[in-house]
């Protein structure tokens, strides 16, 4: 089997395990059935002139986006961004607060809304990055999430400002009751950090084939 394909599969499996744990915690907190899947992942070089972020984001991530970001350092350095369409997040917040996904067309978020997204973002990102760190025996220290509401263009500029970054893109699907929210987790890593990660994956792969 193609070497790269195996590494991607291992990474995807790790992320799905951690996403599952995050979903389980969110289910307990909200008392609703929540599923979180990572159906696909990709790795890009932000320095590559051919790389265009908007061509690789899920199509549903259009218009206004809600982004939770955590920064981490020590063995792995970089930033992880959890991105969802703002309108869908509004429905999710309403579901958590009122128990119904009220059809609220406004994109006005108040402090309470931001706090809820901060909690959700922290649980998901903590789980994903934390599980990686745990599995790979790599210590990660990260901040609590910053939450921002962006247009897609401004978000793209923000990502593209980070030179010498490798981008690990996780395509995610978040299902709560009958609401399906497609989004992405974008992890910016320095080249060195990505190499460390892929080295560790290699070790797992080799153990697997022993």
């Amino acid at each position, binding site marked *: 089997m193609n070497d790269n394909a195996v590494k991607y599969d291992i990474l995807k499996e790790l992320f799905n395990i951690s996403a599952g744990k995050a979903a389980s*915690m969110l289910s*307990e*907190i*909200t008392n609703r059935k929540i599923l979180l899947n990572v159906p696909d992942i990709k790795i890009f070089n932000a320095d590559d002139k051919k790389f265009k972020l908007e061509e690789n984001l899920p199509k549903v991530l259009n218009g206004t986006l809600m982004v939770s970001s955590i920064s981490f350092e020590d063995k792995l350095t970089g930033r992880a961004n959890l991105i969802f369409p703002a309108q869908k997040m509004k429905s999710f917040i309403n579901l*958590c*607060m009122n128990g119904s996904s009220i059809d609220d067309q406004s994109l006005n978020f*108040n*402090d*309470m809304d931001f*706090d*809820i997204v*901060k*909690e959700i973002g*922290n649980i998901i990102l*903590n789980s994903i990055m*934390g599980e990686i*760190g*745990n599995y790979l025996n790599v*210590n*990660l*220290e*990260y*901040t*609590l*999430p910053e939450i921002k509401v962006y247009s897609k263009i401004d978000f793209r500029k923000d990502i593209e400002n980070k030179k010498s970054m490798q981008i690990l893109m996780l395509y995610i699907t978040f299902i709560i009751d009958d609401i399906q929210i497609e989004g992405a987790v974008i992890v910016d890593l320095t080249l060195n950090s990505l190499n460390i990660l892929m080295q560790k994956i290699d070790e797992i792969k080799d153990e697997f084939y022993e």
Partner: protein
Amino acid sequence: MNKILYDVLENLNEGVVLTNDKLNIDFWNGKMEQVSKINKKDAVGKNIFEILPQLNKDYFNKSINAVLKHGSKMFFAAAMHANIIPGNDKYNIKISRLSKDESKFLFIEFINVTNEFVRINELKKYINELNVLNTELKHKEKIISNLAYYDNLTGIGNRTLFYEQADKMLESAKINNSIVALMFIDVDNFKSINDTYGHDAGDKALVRVANMLTESIRNYDIVARFGGDEFVLMFSCPENTENYKKVVSRIIQKKDEMASIGEVKISLSIGISFYPHDGDNIQKLIRKADKAMYLAKKNEQKNKFFYSFCF
């Protein structure tokens, strides 16, 4: 320095709890005493779940273990977790780890956000009230607009609306080089209907005539009450002026179906003029149609109409 740092924590305007890695409370600051009504002497040394039983949930347990083991930071929003500290106030909770030598400590912050909740709820209430007012205003605007353009009795357009719509129809006919017919319709002997049967009967007659005329034309044609017992119809004649005959025969048919109220028989006099033959503006067309209607009225026959094109 330690004393100063201790005093800082003790006097912070947010609740601060420090536990060891067995989750026994080492520090319970002044704010925690104030908000929880639990004295530090009753809290220190006890397990955090004993003092704050609402924290004793599976997800809090898992989060706390992850914080102690990996040093991750956890955040819990007040909107999602109520009554961790008993009472009506709302708290965001931050949990992180402190380390000294080999020892690990849990650092829990309770940040009071009750004022934000109150302000947000007040704003939401205010916005709801504004929305209700806005809906009422729009409803009233519609009523005012209707009063300005629609006849109160029959519900069809009034003279003001007619002139606006007629101008547009003539503009369109000029551009497309097409023919427009204007019918001026009068209810015969309307005064005697009122005098004999009363004004109620007269009003009913007008309503029925309005309905009948509306049903005789297409949705995009114009019907309006011109005033008193006079009505006006305006419609395009796509092929030639003879199209008016179809409309007239529909009016007559409907009139015969519904024209009597009690013993009152309604008859109409209709005068017709055409753009561009009879005039290139609405005033000319009305004058011609009115003259034609007058001639029709003098005609003793039933279902009187007069086509002004003969002039």
